[in-house]
Protein backbone atom coordinates (compact mmCIF):
# COMPACT_ATOMS: atom_id res chain seq x y z
CA UNK A 1 0.00 0.00 0.00
CA UNK A 2 2.76 2.38 0.94
CA UNK A 3 6.49 2.13 0.87
CA UNK A 4 6.43 2.15 4.66
CA UNK A 5 5.04 -1.32 4.26
CA UNK A 6 8.58 -2.58 4.16
CA UNK A 7 9.47 -1.19 7.55
CA UNK A 8 9.59 -3.95 10.06
CA UNK A 9 10.79 -4.03 13.58
CA UNK A 10 14.23 -5.65 13.73
CA UNK A 11 14.95 -8.44 16.17
CA UNK A 12 14.19 -7.54 19.78
CA UNK A 13 16.73 -5.71 21.85
CA UNK A 14 16.99 -2.92 19.32
CA UNK A 15 17.24 -0.46 22.17
CA UNK A 16 20.72 -1.62 23.10
CA UNK A 17 22.91 1.14 24.46
CA UNK A 18 26.10 2.24 22.70
CA UNK A 19 29.10 -0.04 23.01
CA UNK A 20 30.56 0.11 26.49
CA UNK A 21 32.54 -1.88 29.02
CA UNK A 22 29.59 -3.60 30.71
CA UNK A 23 29.33 -6.37 28.17
CA UNK A 24 27.92 -9.00 30.49
CA UNK A 25 25.27 -6.69 31.92
CA UNK A 26 24.17 -5.67 28.44
CA UNK A 27 23.96 -9.24 27.29
CA UNK A 28 21.73 -10.23 30.18
CA UNK A 29 19.56 -7.16 29.62
CA UNK A 30 19.21 -8.18 26.00
CA UNK A 31 18.37 -11.69 27.05
CA UNK A 32 15.72 -10.39 29.45
CA UNK A 33 14.25 -8.24 26.73
CA UNK A 34 14.32 -11.17 24.35
CA UNK A 35 12.44 -13.27 26.86
CA UNK A 36 9.90 -10.50 27.37
CA UNK A 37 9.50 -10.28 23.60
CA UNK A 38 8.63 -13.96 23.44
CA UNK A 39 6.17 -13.63 26.31
CA UNK A 40 4.46 -10.85 24.38
CA UNK A 41 4.42 -12.80 21.14
CA UNK A 42 2.91 -15.82 22.83
CA UNK A 43 0.53 -13.83 25.01
CA UNK A 44 -0.85 -11.76 22.15
CA UNK A 45 -1.24 -14.52 19.57
CA UNK A 46 -2.37 -17.44 21.71
CA UNK A 47 -6.04 -16.46 22.14
CA UNK A 48 -6.47 -15.98 18.39
CA UNK A 49 -4.57 -19.17 17.53
CA UNK A 50 -6.53 -21.24 20.04
CA UNK A 51 -9.97 -20.11 18.97
CA UNK A 52 -9.02 -20.40 15.30
CA UNK A 53 -7.62 -23.92 15.65
CA UNK A 54 -10.48 -25.08 17.83
CA UNK A 55 -13.38 -23.82 15.75
CA UNK A 56 -12.00 -23.75 12.20
CA UNK A 57 -9.41 -26.51 11.85
CA UNK A 58 -10.45 -29.13 14.41
CA UNK A 59 -14.05 -29.45 13.17
CA UNK A 60 -12.88 -30.24 9.64
CA UNK A 61 -10.62 -32.95 11.05
CA UNK A 62 -13.57 -34.43 12.91
CA UNK A 63 -15.69 -34.27 9.77
CA UNK A 64 -13.19 -36.52 7.98
CA UNK A 65 -13.25 -38.95 10.93
CA UNK A 66 -17.04 -39.08 11.32
CA UNK A 67 -17.50 -39.47 7.56
CA UNK A 68 -15.97 -42.96 7.78
CA UNK A 69 -18.75 -44.22 10.03
CA UNK A 70 -22.39 -45.05 9.84
CA UNK A 71 -23.54 -43.02 12.81
CA UNK A 72 -26.83 -41.58 14.10
CA UNK A 73 -25.07 -39.10 16.38
CA UNK A 74 -25.77 -40.86 19.66
CA UNK A 75 -22.79 -42.16 21.61
CA UNK A 76 -19.40 -42.56 19.98
CA UNK A 77 -19.34 -43.72 16.35
CA UNK A 78 -18.62 -47.47 16.17
CA UNK A 79 -19.87 -48.80 12.85
CA UNK A 80 -16.88 -48.20 10.58
CA UNK A 81 -17.85 -48.25 6.90
CA UNK A 82 -14.73 -46.88 5.23
CA UNK A 83 -15.48 -44.77 2.18
CA UNK A 84 -18.98 -46.11 1.68
CA UNK A 85 -20.64 -42.80 2.61
CA UNK A 86 -18.73 -41.15 -0.21
CA UNK A 87 -19.68 -43.73 -2.81
CA UNK A 88 -23.29 -43.54 -1.60
CA UNK A 89 -23.29 -39.76 -2.07
CA UNK A 90 -22.05 -39.98 -5.63
CA UNK A 91 -24.66 -42.61 -6.40
CA UNK A 92 -27.53 -40.53 -5.05
CA UNK A 93 -29.24 -38.71 -7.94
CA UNK A 94 -30.39 -35.98 -5.51
CA UNK A 95 -26.79 -35.22 -4.57
CA UNK A 96 -25.80 -35.16 -8.23
CA UNK A 97 -28.65 -32.70 -8.79
CA UNK A 98 -27.26 -30.61 -5.95
CA UNK A 99 -23.82 -30.63 -7.60
CA UNK A 100 -25.37 -29.57 -10.90
CA UNK A 101 -27.29 -26.78 -9.17
CA UNK A 102 -24.14 -25.49 -7.51
CA UNK A 103 -22.43 -25.49 -10.91
CA UNK A 104 -25.36 -23.56 -12.40
CA UNK A 105 -25.13 -21.00 -9.61
CA UNK A 106 -21.34 -20.64 -9.82
CA UNK A 107 -21.20 -20.16 -13.60
CA UNK A 108 -24.56 -18.43 -13.86
CA UNK A 109 -23.47 -15.83 -11.31
CA UNK A 110 -20.16 -15.17 -13.06
CA UNK A 111 -21.60 -15.06 -16.58
CA UNK A 112 -24.67 -12.96 -15.78
CA UNK A 113 -23.50 -10.64 -13.02
CA UNK A 114 -20.05 -10.05 -14.51
CA UNK A 115 -21.07 -8.47 -17.82
CA UNK A 116 -23.98 -6.55 -16.27
CA UNK A 117 -21.82 -5.14 -13.49
CA UNK A 118 -18.96 -4.30 -15.83
CA UNK A 119 -21.25 -2.57 -18.30
CA UNK A 120 -23.08 -0.54 -15.68
CA UNK A 121 -19.86 0.38 -13.87
CA UNK A 122 -18.14 1.55 -17.06
CA UNK A 123 -21.14 3.61 -18.11
CA UNK A 124 -21.48 5.16 -14.67
CA UNK A 125 -17.78 5.81 -14.22
CA UNK A 126 -18.14 9.56 -14.31
CA UNK A 127 -19.26 12.23 -11.96
CA UNK A 128 -22.99 12.69 -11.93
CA UNK A 129 -25.43 14.22 -9.54
CA UNK A 130 -26.71 11.73 -7.02
CA UNK A 131 -23.85 9.30 -7.39
CA UNK A 132 -23.61 8.79 -3.63
CA UNK A 133 -27.34 8.09 -3.38
CA UNK A 134 -27.07 5.69 -6.31
CA UNK A 135 -24.32 3.75 -4.56
CA UNK A 136 -26.41 3.46 -1.41
CA UNK A 137 -29.51 2.25 -3.25
CA UNK A 138 -27.64 -0.31 -5.32
CA UNK A 139 -26.03 -1.61 -2.16
CA UNK A 140 -29.36 -2.29 -0.45
CA UNK A 141 -29.96 -5.85 -1.71
CA UNK A 142 -26.45 -6.83 -0.74
CA UNK A 143 -26.64 -5.65 2.86
CA UNK A 144 -29.95 -7.32 3.64
CA UNK A 145 -29.77 -10.81 5.10
CA UNK A 146 -30.20 -13.60 2.57
CA UNK A 147 -33.00 -14.94 4.73
CA UNK A 148 -34.94 -11.67 4.66
CA UNK A 149 -34.47 -11.34 0.92
CA UNK A 150 -35.43 -14.97 0.43
CA UNK A 151 -38.70 -14.60 2.36
CA UNK A 152 -39.44 -11.42 0.45
CA UNK A 153 -39.02 -13.03 -2.96
CA UNK A 154 -40.93 -16.09 -1.87
CA UNK A 155 -43.91 -13.85 -1.15
CA UNK A 156 -43.50 -11.95 -4.40
CA UNK A 157 -43.19 -15.12 -6.48
CA UNK A 158 -45.99 -17.27 -5.02
CA UNK A 159 -48.75 -18.27 -7.38
CA UNK A 160 -51.05 -15.30 -7.97
CA UNK A 161 -48.54 -13.12 -6.15
CA UNK A 162 -47.16 -9.74 -7.06
CA UNK A 163 -44.87 -10.81 -9.86
CA UNK A 164 -47.69 -12.66 -11.60
CA UNK A 165 -50.07 -9.74 -11.11
CA UNK A 166 -47.48 -7.35 -12.48
CA UNK A 167 -46.94 -9.49 -15.59
CA UNK A 168 -50.69 -9.73 -16.18
CA UNK A 169 -51.19 -6.00 -15.83
CA UNK A 170 -48.46 -5.50 -18.43
CA UNK A 171 -50.29 -7.83 -20.78
CA UNK A 172 -47.67 -10.51 -20.39
CA UNK A 173 -49.95 -12.98 -18.64
CA UNK A 174 -48.67 -15.79 -20.86
CA UNK A 175 -45.29 -15.54 -19.14
CA UNK A 176 -46.71 -16.40 -15.73
CA UNK A 177 -45.04 -19.52 -14.34
CA UNK A 178 -44.99 -21.65 -11.24
CA UNK A 179 -41.73 -19.90 -10.38
CA UNK A 180 -40.84 -21.83 -7.26
CA UNK A 181 -42.79 -25.05 -7.83
CA UNK A 182 -41.85 -25.99 -11.40
CA UNK A 183 -39.06 -28.52 -10.98
CA UNK A 184 -37.26 -27.48 -14.15
CA UNK A 185 -37.62 -23.78 -13.53
CA UNK A 186 -36.99 -23.33 -9.83
CA UNK A 187 -33.17 -23.27 -9.94
CA UNK A 188 -33.27 -20.56 -12.61
CA UNK A 189 -35.71 -18.53 -10.54
CA UNK A 190 -33.34 -18.82 -7.61
CA UNK A 191 -30.44 -17.81 -9.85
CA UNK A 192 -32.39 -14.70 -10.86
CA UNK A 193 -33.04 -13.80 -7.22
CA UNK A 194 -29.36 -14.32 -6.41
CA UNK A 195 -28.43 -12.11 -9.34
CA UNK A 196 -30.71 -9.40 -7.99
CA UNK A 197 -29.10 -9.67 -4.57
CA UNK A 198 -25.46 -9.73 -5.60
CA UNK A 199 -25.10 -7.73 -8.82
CA UNK A 200 -25.14 -4.46 -6.85
CA UNK A 201 -22.16 -5.61 -4.84
CA UNK A 202 -20.26 -6.33 -8.06
CA UNK A 203 -21.16 -2.88 -9.42
CA UNK A 204 -19.99 -1.13 -6.26
CA UNK A 205 -16.76 -3.10 -6.15
CA UNK A 206 -16.01 -2.35 -9.81
CA UNK A 207 -16.89 1.34 -9.40
CA UNK A 208 -14.48 1.53 -6.49
CA UNK A 209 -11.84 -0.18 -8.62
CA UNK A 210 -12.48 2.26 -11.46
CA UNK A 211 -11.91 5.24 -9.19
CA UNK A 212 -8.34 3.98 -8.86
CA UNK A 213 -7.72 4.14 -12.61
CA UNK A 214 -5.81 7.39 -13.21
CA UNK A 215 -7.65 9.92 -15.40
CA UNK A 216 -4.39 10.75 -17.14
CA UNK A 217 -4.29 7.37 -18.87
CA UNK A 218 -7.75 7.57 -20.37
CA UNK A 219 -7.21 11.21 -21.30
CA UNK A 220 -3.95 10.36 -23.05
CA UNK A 221 -5.71 7.63 -25.00
CA UNK A 222 -8.50 10.05 -25.94
CA UNK A 223 -5.97 12.59 -27.21
CA UNK A 224 -4.39 9.86 -29.31
CA UNK A 225 -7.77 9.46 -30.96
CA UNK A 226 -9.04 6.32 -29.26
CA UNK A 227 -12.79 5.89 -29.21
CA UNK A 228 -14.70 5.47 -25.94
CA UNK A 229 -14.95 1.74 -26.44
CA UNK A 230 -11.26 1.41 -27.40
CA UNK A 231 -10.31 3.22 -24.20
CA UNK A 232 -12.43 0.88 -22.12
CA UNK A 233 -11.21 -2.20 -23.94
CA UNK A 234 -7.49 -1.45 -23.93
CA UNK A 235 -6.95 0.82 -20.93
CA UNK A 236 -9.66 0.67 -18.31
CA UNK A 237 -10.66 -2.99 -18.29
CA UNK A 238 -7.09 -4.33 -18.10
CA UNK A 239 -6.40 -2.00 -15.18
CA UNK A 240 -9.57 -3.30 -13.53
CA UNK A 241 -8.20 -6.85 -13.68
CA UNK A 242 -7.37 -7.27 -9.98
CA UNK A 243 -10.81 -6.04 -8.89
CA UNK A 244 -12.57 -8.30 -11.39
CA UNK A 245 -10.58 -11.31 -10.28
CA UNK A 246 -11.20 -10.74 -6.58
CA UNK A 247 -14.92 -10.36 -7.29
CA UNK A 248 -14.90 -13.63 -9.27
CA UNK A 249 -13.16 -15.32 -6.35
CA UNK A 250 -15.66 -14.07 -3.75
CA UNK A 251 -18.60 -14.90 -6.02
CA UNK A 252 -17.34 -18.43 -6.70
CA UNK A 253 -16.71 -19.29 -3.05
CA UNK A 254 -20.09 -17.86 -2.03
CA UNK A 255 -21.90 -19.78 -4.76
CA UNK A 256 -20.36 -23.10 -3.77
CA UNK A 257 -21.53 -22.71 -0.18
CA UNK A 258 -24.88 -21.12 -0.87
CA UNK A 259 -27.45 -22.15 1.72
CA UNK A 260 -29.62 -19.46 3.37
CA UNK A 261 -31.44 -18.16 0.32
CA UNK A 262 -32.09 -21.62 -1.11
CA UNK A 263 -33.27 -22.91 2.25
CA UNK A 264 -35.92 -20.27 2.91
CA UNK A 265 -37.06 -19.55 -0.64
CA UNK A 266 -37.60 -23.00 -2.06
CA UNK A 267 -40.24 -25.36 -0.75
CA UNK A 268 -38.82 -28.37 1.17
CA UNK A 269 -40.69 -30.79 -1.08
CA UNK A 270 -39.09 -29.28 -4.17
CA UNK A 271 -35.71 -29.33 -2.49
CA UNK A 272 -36.01 -32.96 -1.45
CA UNK A 273 -36.60 -33.91 -5.09
CA UNK A 274 -33.28 -32.30 -5.93
CA UNK A 275 -34.72 -29.57 -8.13
CA UNK A 276 -33.47 -26.77 -5.88
CA UNK A 277 -31.02 -28.58 -3.58
CA UNK A 278 -27.43 -27.41 -3.23
CA UNK A 279 -24.56 -29.26 -1.58
CA UNK A 280 -25.06 -27.26 1.62
CA UNK A 281 -28.84 -27.78 1.86
CA UNK A 282 -28.37 -31.47 1.02
CA UNK A 283 -25.79 -31.75 3.79
CA UNK A 284 -28.01 -30.11 6.42
CA UNK A 285 -31.14 -32.00 5.32
CA UNK A 286 -29.40 -35.36 5.56
CA UNK A 287 -26.89 -34.81 8.33
CA UNK A 288 -28.75 -32.63 10.79
CA UNK A 289 -32.45 -33.15 10.18
CA UNK A 290 -32.42 -36.80 9.05
CA UNK A 291 -29.70 -37.51 11.66
CA UNK A 292 -27.46 -39.38 9.21
CA UNK A 293 -24.42 -37.85 10.83
CA UNK A 294 -21.77 -40.02 9.20
CA UNK A 295 -23.26 -39.48 5.78
CA UNK A 296 -23.76 -35.74 6.36
CA UNK A 297 -20.13 -35.36 7.36
CA UNK A 298 -19.03 -37.14 4.19
CA UNK A 299 -21.02 -34.56 2.19
CA UNK A 300 -19.35 -31.84 4.28
CA UNK A 301 -15.93 -33.19 3.33
CA UNK A 302 -16.90 -33.29 -0.35
CA UNK A 303 -18.17 -29.70 -0.16
CA UNK A 304 -14.98 -28.68 1.62
CA UNK A 305 -12.65 -30.38 -0.86
CA UNK A 306 -14.46 -28.88 -3.86
CA UNK A 307 -14.38 -25.35 -2.37
CA UNK A 308 -10.80 -25.70 -1.21
CA UNK A 309 -9.48 -26.99 -4.52
CA UNK A 310 -11.43 -24.39 -6.48
CA UNK A 311 -10.11 -21.62 -4.23
CA UNK A 312 -6.57 -22.94 -4.39
CA UNK A 313 -6.59 -23.24 -8.19
CA UNK A 314 -8.09 -19.79 -8.57
CA UNK A 315 -5.56 -18.38 -6.15
CA UNK A 316 -2.69 -20.15 -7.84
CA UNK A 317 -3.46 -19.16 -11.40
CA UNK A 318 -5.42 -15.93 -11.27
CA UNK A 319 -5.09 -14.18 -7.95
CA UNK A 320 -1.39 -14.64 -7.37
CA UNK A 321 -0.39 -11.19 -8.44
CA UNK A 322 -3.25 -9.49 -6.64
CA UNK A 323 -2.86 -10.54 -3.05
CA UNK A 324 0.84 -11.21 -3.19
CA UNK A 325 0.84 -14.86 -2.38
CA UNK A 326 -0.98 -14.40 0.90
CA UNK A 327 -2.29 -17.92 0.76
CA UNK A 328 -0.30 -20.23 -1.45
CA UNK A 329 2.88 -18.52 -2.46
CA UNK A 330 5.63 -17.01 -0.41
CA UNK A 331 4.36 -14.16 1.71
CA UNK A 332 6.61 -11.18 1.21
Amino acid at each position, binding site marked *: *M*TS*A*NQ*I*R*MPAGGASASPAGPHKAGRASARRADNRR*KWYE*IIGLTTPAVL*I*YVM*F*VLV*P*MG*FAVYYSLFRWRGVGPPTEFVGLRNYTLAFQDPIFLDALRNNAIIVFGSLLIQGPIALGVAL*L*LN*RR*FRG*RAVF*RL*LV*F*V*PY*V*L*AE*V*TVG*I*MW*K*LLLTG*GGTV*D*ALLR*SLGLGSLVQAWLADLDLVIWTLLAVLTWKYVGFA*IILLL*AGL*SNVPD*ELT*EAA*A*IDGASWWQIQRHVTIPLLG*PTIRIWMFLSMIGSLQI*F*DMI*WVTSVPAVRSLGASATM*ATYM*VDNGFFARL*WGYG*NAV*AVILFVIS*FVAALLFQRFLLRRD*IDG*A*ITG*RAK
Partner: protein
Amino acid sequence: MAVNTVVPPSTGRRQVSWGTPLTYAIALAVAAVSIAPVVYVVIGGFRTTPQIVADPAGLPNPLVWDNYARVLTQSNFWQQAFNSAVIALGTTLAVVVLGLAAAFVLARYSFRGREGLYTFFTLGLLFPAGAAILPLYLMLRDLNLINSYYAVILPQVAFSLPLTIVILRPFLSAIPRELEDAAAIDGASRLGFLWRVAMPLSRPALVTVGVLAFVASWNSFLLPLLVLSDVSLHTLPLGVQNFSSQYTTDTAGVLAFTSLAMLPALLFFTLAEKQIVGGLQGAVKG
Protein backbone atom coordinates in the same frame (compact mmCIF):
# COMPACT_ATOMS: atom_id res chain seq x y z
CA MET B 1 -10.56 12.29 -7.22
CA ALA B 2 -10.86 15.44 -5.19
CA VAL B 3 -11.15 18.31 -7.63
CA ASN B 4 -11.88 18.10 -11.34
CA THR B 5 -8.72 17.70 -13.30
CA VAL B 6 -8.46 19.76 -16.44
CA VAL B 7 -10.39 17.86 -19.05
CA PRO B 8 -9.68 18.51 -22.71
CA PRO B 9 -12.65 20.58 -23.87
CA SER B 10 -13.63 18.27 -26.72
CA THR B 11 -14.05 15.12 -24.61
CA GLY B 12 -15.65 17.14 -21.86
CA ARG B 13 -18.34 18.41 -24.14
CA ARG B 14 -18.87 15.01 -25.69
CA GLN B 15 -19.51 13.49 -22.27
CA VAL B 16 -22.12 16.08 -21.49
CA SER B 17 -23.86 15.91 -24.84
CA TRP B 18 -24.62 12.20 -24.96
CA GLY B 19 -23.30 10.81 -21.76
CA THR B 20 -25.46 12.47 -19.21
CA PRO B 21 -28.98 11.40 -20.16
CA LEU B 22 -27.79 7.84 -20.74
CA THR B 23 -25.94 7.88 -17.42
CA TYR B 24 -29.02 9.01 -15.56
CA ALA B 25 -31.25 6.55 -17.34
CA ILE B 26 -29.01 3.63 -16.45
CA ALA B 27 -28.43 4.80 -12.90
CA LEU B 28 -32.16 5.25 -12.36
CA ALA B 29 -33.03 1.87 -13.86
CA VAL B 30 -30.46 -0.03 -11.81
CA ALA B 31 -31.38 1.78 -8.60
CA ALA B 32 -35.09 1.18 -9.21
CA VAL B 33 -34.65 -2.53 -9.80
CA SER B 34 -32.53 -2.75 -6.65
CA ILE B 35 -34.99 -1.17 -4.26
CA ALA B 36 -38.42 -1.72 -5.84
CA PRO B 37 -39.02 -5.09 -4.12
CA VAL B 38 -37.91 -3.67 -0.79
CA VAL B 39 -40.17 -0.65 -1.14
CA TYR B 40 -43.01 -2.97 -2.09
CA VAL B 41 -42.53 -5.03 1.06
CA VAL B 42 -42.48 -1.96 3.30
CA ILE B 43 -45.61 -0.54 1.66
CA GLY B 44 -47.30 -3.95 1.71
CA GLY B 45 -46.96 -3.92 5.48
CA PHE B 46 -49.37 -0.97 5.52
CA ARG B 47 -52.14 -2.92 3.78
CA THR B 48 -54.42 -5.73 4.89
CA THR B 49 -54.05 -9.28 3.64
CA PRO B 50 -57.41 -9.25 1.77
CA GLN B 51 -56.32 -6.05 -0.01
CA ILE B 52 -53.04 -7.65 -1.01
CA VAL B 53 -54.73 -10.80 -2.27
CA ALA B 54 -57.27 -8.82 -4.27
CA ASP B 55 -54.72 -6.50 -5.84
CA PRO B 56 -51.11 -7.57 -5.18
CA ALA B 57 -49.58 -4.49 -6.79
CA GLY B 58 -51.86 -1.82 -5.30
CA LEU B 59 -51.14 1.01 -2.90
CA PRO B 60 -52.37 1.12 0.71
CA ASN B 61 -55.80 2.64 0.81
CA PRO B 62 -56.47 3.40 3.57
CA LEU B 63 -53.13 3.20 5.38
CA VAL B 64 -53.18 0.39 7.95
CA TRP B 65 -50.82 0.60 10.95
CA ASP B 66 -52.16 -2.50 12.55
CA ASN B 67 -49.63 -4.97 11.08
CA TYR B 68 -46.61 -3.09 12.32
CA ALA B 69 -48.20 -2.49 15.71
CA ARG B 70 -49.06 -6.18 15.99
CA VAL B 71 -45.51 -7.31 15.15
CA LEU B 72 -43.97 -4.86 17.61
CA THR B 73 -46.30 -5.69 20.48
CA GLN B 74 -47.29 -9.32 20.07
CA SER B 75 -44.40 -11.09 18.39
CA ASN B 76 -40.92 -11.95 19.62
CA PHE B 77 -39.47 -9.16 17.53
CA TRP B 78 -37.81 -7.26 20.38
CA GLN B 79 -36.45 -10.38 22.00
CA GLN B 80 -34.95 -11.48 18.69
CA ALA B 81 -33.51 -8.07 17.93
CA PHE B 82 -31.90 -8.11 21.36
CA ASN B 83 -30.39 -11.57 20.80
CA SER B 84 -29.07 -10.52 17.39
CA ALA B 85 -27.51 -7.40 18.91
CA VAL B 86 -25.82 -9.27 21.79
CA ILE B 87 -24.37 -11.88 19.44
CA ALA B 88 -23.25 -9.35 16.83
CA LEU B 89 -21.65 -7.03 19.38
CA GLY B 90 -19.96 -9.88 21.21
CA THR B 91 -18.59 -11.24 17.95
CA THR B 92 -17.39 -7.83 16.79
CA LEU B 93 -15.65 -7.01 20.05
CA ALA B 94 -13.86 -10.36 20.26
CA VAL B 95 -12.81 -10.30 16.60
CA VAL B 96 -11.37 -6.81 16.87
CA VAL B 97 -9.48 -7.46 20.12
CA LEU B 98 -8.07 -10.88 19.19
CA GLY B 99 -7.41 -9.87 15.58
CA LEU B 100 -5.59 -6.68 16.59
CA ALA B 101 -3.40 -8.52 19.10
CA ALA B 102 -2.40 -11.20 16.60
CA ALA B 103 -1.96 -8.78 13.68
CA PHE B 104 0.21 -6.51 15.83
CA VAL B 105 2.61 -9.34 16.56
CA LEU B 106 2.62 -10.42 12.91
CA ALA B 107 3.29 -6.87 11.76
CA ARG B 108 5.81 -5.50 14.24
CA TYR B 109 7.75 -8.34 15.83
CA SER B 110 10.34 -10.27 13.91
CA PHE B 111 10.76 -13.83 15.00
CA ARG B 112 11.32 -17.21 13.50
CA GLY B 113 8.09 -18.68 12.14
CA ARG B 114 6.31 -15.37 11.72
CA GLU B 115 5.49 -15.82 8.04
CA GLY B 116 4.51 -19.40 8.76
CA LEU B 117 2.04 -18.21 11.37
CA TYR B 118 0.64 -15.63 8.96
CA THR B 119 0.18 -18.23 6.22
CA PHE B 120 -1.47 -20.48 8.80
CA PHE B 121 -4.08 -17.79 9.46
CA THR B 122 -4.60 -16.91 5.79
CA LEU B 123 -5.32 -20.56 5.12
CA GLY B 124 -8.56 -19.94 7.00
CA LEU B 125 -9.75 -17.78 4.09
CA LEU B 126 -10.08 -21.01 2.11
CA PHE B 127 -12.06 -22.84 4.81
CA PRO B 128 -15.75 -22.51 4.04
CA ALA B 129 -17.72 -21.99 7.24
CA GLY B 130 -20.66 -23.86 5.76
CA ALA B 131 -18.72 -27.08 5.28
CA ALA B 132 -17.69 -27.24 8.92
CA ILE B 133 -21.17 -26.75 10.29
CA LEU B 134 -22.03 -30.37 11.15
CA PRO B 135 -18.85 -31.25 13.09
CA LEU B 136 -19.06 -27.78 14.65
CA TYR B 137 -22.53 -28.60 15.92
CA LEU B 138 -21.33 -31.92 17.36
CA MET B 139 -18.40 -30.24 19.05
CA LEU B 140 -20.55 -27.50 20.59
CA ARG B 141 -22.95 -30.19 21.77
CA ASP B 142 -20.14 -32.07 23.48
CA LEU B 143 -18.95 -28.82 25.08
CA ASN B 144 -22.48 -28.21 26.37
CA LEU B 145 -22.66 -24.89 24.58
CA ILE B 146 -25.76 -25.57 22.49
CA ASN B 147 -28.48 -22.99 23.20
CA SER B 148 -26.13 -20.31 24.44
CA TYR B 149 -24.84 -17.11 22.85
CA TYR B 150 -21.34 -18.61 22.89
CA ALA B 151 -22.37 -21.33 20.48
CA VAL B 152 -22.80 -18.65 17.82
CA ILE B 153 -20.18 -16.14 18.92
CA LEU B 154 -17.13 -18.42 19.24
CA PRO B 155 -17.30 -20.03 15.77
CA GLN B 156 -18.13 -16.67 14.18
CA VAL B 157 -15.07 -15.11 15.80
CA ALA B 158 -12.91 -18.01 14.62
CA PHE B 159 -14.12 -17.72 11.03
CA SER B 160 -13.76 -13.91 10.97
CA LEU B 161 -10.18 -13.90 12.26
CA PRO B 162 -8.35 -14.70 8.98
CA LEU B 163 -9.86 -11.79 7.03
CA THR B 164 -9.41 -9.49 10.03
CA ILE B 165 -5.72 -10.31 10.27
CA VAL B 166 -5.20 -10.01 6.51
CA ILE B 167 -6.72 -6.51 6.60
CA LEU B 168 -5.05 -5.30 9.80
CA ARG B 169 -1.48 -6.51 9.28
CA PRO B 170 -0.44 -4.23 6.38
CA PHE B 171 -2.05 -1.32 8.21
CA LEU B 172 0.02 -1.93 11.32
CA SER B 173 3.16 -2.58 9.27
CA ALA B 174 2.79 0.78 7.61
CA ILE B 175 3.18 2.73 10.85
CA PRO B 176 6.61 4.37 10.50
CA ARG B 177 9.46 3.03 12.55
CA GLU B 178 10.21 6.55 13.79
CA LEU B 179 6.97 6.64 15.75
CA GLU B 180 7.92 3.47 17.55
CA ASP B 181 11.37 4.83 18.34
CA ALA B 182 9.86 8.07 19.60
CA ALA B 183 7.46 6.14 21.81
CA ALA B 184 10.35 4.08 23.16
CA ILE B 185 12.33 7.23 23.97
CA ASP B 186 9.29 8.52 25.82
CA GLY B 187 9.43 5.38 27.91
CA ALA B 188 6.66 3.34 26.26
CA SER B 189 7.11 -0.40 26.07
CA ARG B 190 6.09 -2.33 22.95
CA LEU B 191 2.70 -2.93 24.53
CA GLY B 192 2.46 0.75 25.43
CA PHE B 193 3.17 1.50 21.77
CA LEU B 194 0.35 -0.85 20.73
CA TRP B 195 -2.10 0.75 23.15
CA ARG B 196 -1.19 4.44 22.79
CA VAL B 197 0.05 4.73 19.20
CA ALA B 198 -0.73 1.74 16.97
CA MET B 199 -4.33 1.31 18.04
CA PRO B 200 -5.43 4.94 17.61
CA LEU B 201 -3.58 5.16 14.28
CA SER B 202 -5.24 2.06 12.86
CA ARG B 203 -8.75 3.13 13.82
CA PRO B 204 -10.05 3.22 10.22
CA ALA B 205 -8.93 -0.36 9.66
CA LEU B 206 -10.39 -1.43 13.00
CA VAL B 207 -13.71 0.13 12.07
CA THR B 208 -13.61 -1.74 8.76
CA VAL B 209 -13.00 -5.16 10.27
CA GLY B 210 -15.52 -4.42 13.00
CA VAL B 211 -18.19 -3.53 10.46
CA LEU B 212 -17.49 -6.62 8.36
CA ALA B 213 -17.71 -8.89 11.41
CA PHE B 214 -20.91 -7.19 12.59
CA VAL B 215 -22.51 -7.51 9.14
CA ALA B 216 -21.67 -11.19 8.86
CA SER B 217 -22.98 -11.90 12.34
CA TRP B 218 -26.17 -9.87 12.03
CA ASN B 219 -27.13 -11.70 8.83
CA SER B 220 -25.98 -15.19 9.73
CA PHE B 221 -28.58 -17.92 9.59
CA LEU B 222 -27.15 -21.43 9.23
CA LEU B 223 -25.19 -21.53 12.49
CA PRO B 224 -27.99 -20.11 14.69
CA LEU B 225 -30.47 -22.41 12.92
CA LEU B 226 -28.56 -25.46 14.13
CA VAL B 227 -27.31 -24.39 17.55
CA LEU B 228 -30.16 -22.22 18.87
CA SER B 229 -33.21 -24.45 19.12
CA ASP B 230 -34.42 -22.54 22.18
CA VAL B 231 -36.95 -20.04 20.84
CA SER B 232 -36.07 -17.41 23.46
CA LEU B 233 -32.53 -17.28 22.01
CA HIS B 234 -33.59 -16.93 18.36
CA THR B 235 -32.02 -14.16 16.31
CA LEU B 236 -33.83 -11.98 13.77
CA PRO B 237 -33.07 -14.10 10.68
CA LEU B 238 -34.52 -17.12 12.48
CA GLY B 239 -37.44 -14.99 13.58
CA VAL B 240 -38.24 -13.89 10.04
CA GLN B 241 -38.15 -17.48 8.84
CA ASN B 242 -40.32 -18.74 11.73
CA PHE B 243 -42.86 -15.95 11.49
CA SER B 244 -43.31 -16.50 7.77
CA SER B 245 -43.82 -20.25 8.10
CA GLN B 246 -46.05 -19.90 11.17
CA TYR B 247 -48.40 -17.28 9.73
CA THR B 248 -48.50 -18.30 6.09
CA THR B 249 -51.94 -16.82 5.59
CA ASP B 250 -51.08 -13.49 7.24
CA THR B 251 -49.24 -12.03 4.25
CA ALA B 252 -49.49 -8.46 5.54
CA GLY B 253 -48.07 -9.48 8.91
CA VAL B 254 -45.14 -11.26 7.25
CA LEU B 255 -44.45 -8.19 5.12
CA ALA B 256 -44.48 -5.99 8.23
CA PHE B 257 -42.21 -8.33 10.16
CA THR B 258 -39.81 -8.59 7.22
CA SER B 259 -39.68 -4.80 6.85
CA LEU B 260 -38.96 -4.31 10.53
CA ALA B 261 -36.22 -6.94 10.39
CA MET B 262 -34.64 -5.08 7.47
CA LEU B 263 -34.70 -1.73 9.20
CA PRO B 264 -31.75 -2.04 11.63
CA ALA B 265 -29.54 -3.48 8.91
CA LEU B 266 -30.49 -0.73 6.47
CA LEU B 267 -29.79 2.01 9.02
CA PHE B 268 -26.52 0.47 10.03
CA PHE B 269 -25.32 -0.01 6.47
CA THR B 270 -26.28 3.47 5.39
CA LEU B 271 -23.81 4.68 7.99
CA ALA B 272 -21.13 2.10 7.28
CA GLU B 273 -21.27 1.68 3.49
CA LYS B 274 -17.89 3.32 2.93
CA GLN B 275 -16.20 1.04 5.47
CA ILE B 276 -17.62 -2.08 3.89
CA VAL B 277 -16.42 -1.20 0.40
CA GLY B 278 -13.14 0.17 1.74
CA GLY B 279 -12.55 -2.97 3.74
CA LEU B 280 -13.11 -5.26 0.80
CA GLN B 281 -10.82 -3.12 -1.31
CA GLY B 282 -8.25 -3.18 1.46
CA ALA B 283 -8.41 -6.94 1.47
CA VAL B 284 -7.71 -6.91 -2.27
CA LYS B 285 -4.72 -4.64 -2.10
CA GLY B 286 -3.44 -5.65 1.33
